[in-house]
């Protein structure tokens, strides 16, 4: 393949796809990164909180089961 053939194809490509050189970032992406970092911090799912609340309520209203639980643990 000759160099001229590559140049010819290069011209065709450049006509169809103008080079992206000179296109600058229009906004600061740090806020988007902060949101991303925030999403990844450890969170307890709401269902786990519900289960914990139910267990606490059970122990509060039926304290008699505490010795049984301790025995089995």
């Amino acid at each position, binding site marked *: 393949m000759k160099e001229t053939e*590559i140049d010819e*194809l290069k011209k065709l490509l450049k*006509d*169809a796809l*103008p*080079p*992206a050189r000179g*296109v600058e970032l229009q906004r*600061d*992406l740090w806020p988007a990164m902060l949101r991303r970092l925030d999403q990844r911090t450890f969170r307890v799912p709401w269902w786990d909180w519900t289960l914990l609340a139910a267990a606490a309520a059970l122990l509060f209203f039926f304290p008699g089961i505490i010795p049984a639980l301790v025995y089995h643990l």
Partner: protein
Amino acid sequence: MELLERFAAGDLDAFESLFRQYQGEVYRWILRIVRNTATAEDLTVETLWRIYRAHAQFDVAKGNCGPWMRRIATNVAIDHLRRSRHEIPLPDNLAAPAQQPPAEQLELRREILDAVNKLSPRLRAVVLLALVEEESYESIAQALGISENAVKVRVFRGVRILRKTLTQAGVHS
């Protein structure tokens, strides 16, 4: 150097400084591959997120994280092309021509874009960077983690496939 050491130790303030320093460069590099401004912004955040997660792997002795970032950015962009089978859109949001081209030119452009989209994501990235953006083989090789000879081979292979596809479509003789 102190900034890079703090970044490698996981300091968020140091990461913010590096983020602001490199976000434009990472964005421009990704844009050259995916050719869509909104996608390039999303992938820039993804790239810098991966860089933050991998802070412990950064070799402070190298003293410059630019090439490392560019390599991760290239992988992120190619992963995106592979995952989404993303087609390069008509370049209406990049450096668009001053006037609307006639219908036959639009058709010709469509044929060329179709041919480029038929290339594998890795080959497409090399062809776009080498032939459209005229990046040096050295910088493409660094970004892909391959040798310059391997880049030349890929460019040659890409040109051959494009020529064949365009000849079949009657665009190129």
